[in-house]
């Protein structure tokens, strides 16, 4: 009886262990990403940061971040993609994804598809929209983290 109970407990443990397998066990060293992005940010000053944890889905999808910018400031956008297992598309537009005739201001493809860090400067006071395009993959599979840091001077 005692062994049977131990066995049941064992199966429970295995079930718990199995639940820790897969995407949730994946981690990113945020401090390492932050330190690298901060170096790329110099001489600009830190303004905001967005850590995006990326999982794939059965089909390609997009994430958009609206970034307000103010007059009289120059801005630097730094993207650190070192913690991503496979590349995602990074684009910056002058209008949101639902707008017609929006203008592409920056594209990671043009900057170099094999790069892991992207730096882009901008000095207009308007909103811009950062779009991430996550390619199709295994549904729910963890692809890693992308850090976006915004600076100004």
């Amino acid at each position, binding site marked *: 009886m005692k062994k049977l109970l131990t066995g049941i407990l064992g199966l429970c*443990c295995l079930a718990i262990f199995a639940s820790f397998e897969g995407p949730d066990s994946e*981690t990113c*060293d945020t401090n390492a990403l*932050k330190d690298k992005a901060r170096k790329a940010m110099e001489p600009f000053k830190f303004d*905001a940061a967005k850590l995006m944890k990326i999982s794939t889905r059965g089909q390609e999808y997009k994430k958009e971040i609206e970034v307000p910018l103010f007059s009289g400031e120059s801005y630097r956008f730094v993207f650190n993609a070192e913690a991503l297992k496979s590349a995602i598309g990074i684009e910056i537009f002058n209008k949101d994804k639902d707008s017609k005739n929006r203008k592409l201001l920056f594209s990671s493809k043009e900057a170099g598809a094999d790069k892991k860090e992207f730096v882009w400067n901008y000095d207009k006071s308007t909103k811009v929209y950062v779009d991430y395009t996550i390619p199709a993959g295994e549904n729910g599979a963890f692809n890693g983290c992308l850090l976006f840091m915004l600076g*100004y001077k």
Partner: protein
Amino acid sequence: MHLNKAASALYGSLATAACIFLFSCGSGKKDDQKEVTSTKDTTAPAAAEHKGDQTSYTLPSPIQIASIFKKAGLTYYPNIGNAAENASKYNAGKVNESLNLGVYSADLSYCALNKQAQDARNYLKASRQMAEMLGLGKVFETDNLASRFDANLSVDDSLGPIIADMEMQTDLILQEREQEYISATVFAGAWVESMYIGGKVFEKGKGKNVSAHLIEQMAIANNIIKALKANESKDPAISGVASDIASIRDLFENFAGVKALTQDRDEVDFSKIAITDAEMAGFIKKIDEIRAKIVKG
């Protein structure tokens, strides 16, 4: 019977092995606060997780807003900010605490950029007190931020980068912990306090250029409201904060000059909006009213 015993023994062995493996794996990561352990998209409202097309927002740091006002000629007046000793009275829950952490972050930025070392030290202490109540005391330990701050109190232009580091640490820790609702309320408090300080300096007649930047800041009012509304389910007090910010926005959007420029337009250049003196007085009064609600505790 022998087979059952053997199976039982096998389960027992597997159980022991699995438990040992499970806990040995867990202990290696548990203490490493640097690492992110979730796969959720931290920038998106949870309810819209699988829609995939939702937009999230960045909100400027309090030190950047202070810097914009400073460039516009915002002069320093002592005692405009919330009294640092009030920090001990904010204990009515996370929203109340995070709003006032934001208020003190804005006051700290205002003092630091105007080289008011002693006032900045007092606001740093108040900010730390609020941060500790929110479980963010670690921010002040990372990279020796607090001691760097003390060591640089008398060094010109060195406090700004240290405050920026604190804000960055706070942002990232909250994102790692998936507590972005705290980020949103901290920012709401900081934004209201920054607008309040800008309004007070404008009223004293020594910040004529500040009015244009007060107006320009309204470009992010909707982002703050959306960020708060996306997190309403996390704490019932958040919807009240969103309504307060919305009341400032609604007043502003009803000014004739604002209506004329924003009607039927997707994109508005806020730097081109002009409002009358009476409208500006009403606008500042509304900000005062909302700020008073936040700092009363």
